[in-house]
């Protein structure tokens, strides 16, 4: 087995954004279930939140390769 410690670090770092993205879409789904007509508005908000949360994971992968 060989590998890079950076990748383990990245795996750990990805937990946070993973949970965050899950929470965002859970809230989005229950929001749409309650109020299907609000889907259009909720979708853009959810995607924006998803992008922000995923930014952390993406910074992680960048650092994993660069450091």
């Amino acid at each position: 087995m060989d590998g890079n410690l950076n990748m383990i670090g990245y795996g750990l770092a990805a937990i946070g954004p993973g949970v965050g993205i899950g929470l965002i879409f859970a809230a989005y789904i229950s929001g749409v279930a309650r109020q299907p007509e609000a889907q259009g508005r909720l979708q853009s908000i959810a995607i924006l939140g998803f992008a922000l949360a995923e930014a952390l994971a993406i910074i992680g992968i960048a650092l994993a390769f660069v450091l």
Partner: protein
Amino acid sequence: MTDHIVVAAAVENPLGFVPVEFALSLVTFGILFFLIWKFVAPRFEQTFAERTQAIEGGIAAAESKQAEADAKLAELEKQLGDARHEAARIREEAREQGARIVAEMRETAQAESSRIVEHGKAQIEAERQQAITSLRAEVGTLATGLAGRIVGESLEDEARQSRVVERFLTDLEAQNGTTTGSVN
């Protein structure tokens, strides 16, 4: 870590910046964007606008046709109602007129018949009078002649003859007064 860096020099870092690829991507996308912007988007928007217009125009035309048809239908119904009304009026009038004509004709016929009856009566009366007059003269002559012959007495004398006849007739009339009245 030093080990890793040595390897990284051998194998390119996946996040590494490759100017050629960067420039190619930019240029390719730029050209694609230009072509889409120049040729595709205007055609699409134009088609879209035309279609919208066509559909809206079609709807407007259909609406005006519908309104026209509705107006025509209403007009026809109104005409039909008028015609029915008119027909009823005419029928009523005809009935009235017929009744009036029948009444008039009945009246005329009545008048005619009574006129004819009247005329007939008058004629009969006249003829009776004439008959009476001629009978009177004839009867007188005959009676006189007959009496002269029977009596043997000359009754040639005009004055006497006339007097005798008059007297006879008067007696006769007085005798048959009731009989004559019943004949009339």
